[in-house]
């Protein structure tokens, strides 16, 4: 069987924690680049009054979605902002007026066919809410006459430890999820949908089974709880048994993979027209005294979230946006929440600082057995040291999705995944 997984501690302590709306921040900072693709250009000026749901950034580029204001208030500044990835983009700083006046642009979109559906999704500012943030309108923009899609895979695996935000979406808004699935199935003429949930979320599985009991073509697929079960290729295989090959999109195999929170959002947007301006996040880690799930407005500084979860900034040694396996370290407590954030983890020194130094590779082969793509990280490391780009291509380094399983299992504590990432620089 392809796609081996590794076993990780689940740490889903916040699974029972109902989402709490975060208090309105005084100031939000909304970056113009919220996901992969072209950053937007601000469409507002300093001093402008903005309202909730008003478009404040747009781009004519294909690989881009607009950015909307999450608050009502006044634009205080527009400046350059350093993203966690090291890139610089523009950000709009808005001082809130406390009224949260909703923009008059916010009204249910006119949708009657696939074209208008895709156009509406683009206007909603929606991107993959699972973390990778692929713009949803591009994912759904497939030529169904030429390449019909027969399977909609709803990714609710949530295989990263700690994170429970997708699980809470299912439990708190099950009808939105089902409706979103139906809308996508309707406009893309998809026969079957599979809601894939890891078995460590029995409550979510039970609820989805109940809600889909009368829906013959929406199936709930309980998945073995193993990492990286939620990776696109892995979840597509678990649901349909089809392998999405090298350089292929799932649509080439008749599959569209959509995150469960994205499905829920699509339903709400079609009903209300409120674009993507808020995000559910799991706040967890040993630096937070009150781990919980919160609904935060896009642009809210992370420091507000930390305070809400009773985390002392002084005690936090490492702040991670996302899960512990693939999440990115934040270096600033004032980093704003973006559309693709699904968790903020605060680790104290105990969890953040590695006690053991890395030692020599002992060729134990654990990285090879752990790799879900069946790559050979040990050979990749050798080829990287020799700067042998041809060998790296032969070893199919391009298939590495940086899931981190190889580093996780390495008994010599080597930074195996990091080496893979560095090696990718040689074959670009």
């Amino acid at each position, binding site marked *: 069987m392809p796609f081996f997984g590794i076993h990780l501690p689940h740490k889903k302590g916040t699974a029972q924690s109902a989402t709490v709306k975060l208090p309105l921040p005084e100031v939000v900072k909304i970056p113009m680049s919220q996901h992969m693709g072209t950053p937007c250009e601000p469409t507002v000026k300093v001093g402008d009054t903005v309202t909730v749901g008003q478009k404040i950034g747009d781009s004519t580029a294909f690989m881009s979605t607009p950015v909307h204001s999450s608050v009502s208030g006044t634009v205080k500044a527009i400046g350059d902002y350093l993203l966690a990835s090291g890139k610089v983009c523009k950000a709009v700083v808005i001082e809130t007026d406390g009224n949260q006046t909703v923009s008059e642009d916010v009204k249910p979109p006119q949708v009657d066919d696939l074209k208008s559906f895709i156009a509406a999704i683009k206007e909603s500012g929606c991107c993959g809410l699972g973390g990778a943030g692929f713009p949803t309108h591009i994912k759904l923009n497939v030529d169904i006459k030429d390449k019909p899609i027969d399977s909609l895979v709803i990714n609710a695996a949530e295989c990263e430890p700690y994170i429970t935000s997708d699980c809470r979406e299912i439990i708190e808004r099950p009808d939105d999820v089902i409706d979103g699935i139906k809308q996508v199935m309707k406009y893309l003429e998809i026969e079957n949908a599979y809601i894939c949930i890891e078995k460590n979320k029995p409550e979510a599985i039970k609820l989805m089974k109940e809600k889909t009991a009368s829906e013959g073509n929406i199936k709930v697929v309980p998945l073995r709880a193993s990492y990286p079960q939620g990776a696109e290729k892995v979840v597509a295989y678990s649901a349909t048994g089809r392998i999405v090959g090298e350089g292929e999109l799932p649509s080439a195999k008749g599959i569209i993979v959509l995150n469960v929170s994205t499905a829920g959002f699509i339903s709400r947007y079609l009903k209300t027209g409120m674009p993507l301006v808020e995000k559910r996040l799991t706040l967890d880690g040993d630096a937070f005294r009150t781990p919980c799930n919160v609904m935060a407005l896009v642009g809210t500084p992370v420091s507000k979230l930390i305070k809400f979860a009773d985390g002392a900034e002084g005690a936090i040694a490492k702040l991670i946006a996302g899960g512990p396996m693939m999440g990115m370290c934040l270096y600033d407590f004032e980093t704003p929440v973006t559309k693709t954030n699904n968790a903020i983890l605060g680790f104290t020194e105990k969890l953040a600082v590695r006690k053991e130094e890395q030692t020599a590779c002992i060729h134990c082969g654990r990285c090879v057995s752990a790799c879900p793509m069946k790559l050979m990280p040990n050979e990749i490391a050798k080829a990287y040291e020799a700067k042998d780009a041809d060998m790296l291509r032969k070893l199919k380094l391009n298939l590495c999705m940086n899931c981190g399983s190889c580093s996780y299992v390495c008994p010599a504590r080597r*930074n195996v995944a990091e080496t893979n990432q560095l090696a990718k620089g040689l074959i670009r």
Partner: protein
Amino acid sequence: MRVNSMEKLLVSPSPHIRNDVSTAKIMGHVMIGLLPAVIAATVIFGGKALMLIGFCIAVAVILERISGAIMKRPDTTGDLSAAVTGLIFALNLPPTLPFWIALIGLFFAIVVTKMLFGGLGCNFANPAIVGRIVITLSFTSAMTTWSEPFSSDVTTMATPLASRSADYFDMFIGTTSGCIGETSALALIFGFVYLCAVKVITPSTPVAYVGTVALFSWIAGVDPLYQVLAGGLLLGAIFMATDYVTTPVTQTGKIIFGIGCGIITCVIRLYGSYPEGVSFSILIMNIVTPYIDMLCRTKPVGAKKPAKPQKEGM
């Protein structure tokens, strides 16, 4: 008041968590896996065997520490690999071997085979096996002087492989002559089950190795069970042919390695001039391991075959 938050937060590439299996823990498991054999050796051959084991472990660690210091390398004895080498080496010695000969063997094992090649992970051959082969060839009579079980007398009793007349039960529980740790099949099988249970080794190499020896012997008209129980086969197959550093990484590679060891062992045992061929077979297969690894690469999921290079100038 926050002065400079950029100084306080740690930034590192993902993943941010690791499991708790370390090199030292793996080596610790191997030592626990060898414990039944050590106990059996002490019961069968007495305190002198235990003393030789302790001596070898201590010397192996000291040699690694001293040579590492001379080579200006950080001390690596904490990973326990030197201790494991010392222990396995000791179990491959006759119980009455003079300590100074063991010292020479350990020098070749730790200093020459391991440290001069760059330390743990860089040696191409199993250090304990090279050490043993060096002293077997140099001090052949001392290395083939066996003592009877439960006796402190140095006799020149033949091992089951040479005598070809030992009792199955004796060979199974270990009450026969031979190297310190090789006589008790029962103790070694306990270790095998333990190492598989804690996932330090997979059964592939030992099963392929022992299976090949049994099959080869059966085809050659020799008693397969006798060949499996006699000599150092189980000790070699379970604890030396499974050494990570010097054996293939993939499961297919491990099986090829085991089959290769089995064939070479049988050829030496049945047709060669040495009664035992386990050490030589593992050493030879250690040498071909890089080639086995090259041939047995995994097939990445969904990988496309590269386009055939276009011929130029046609």
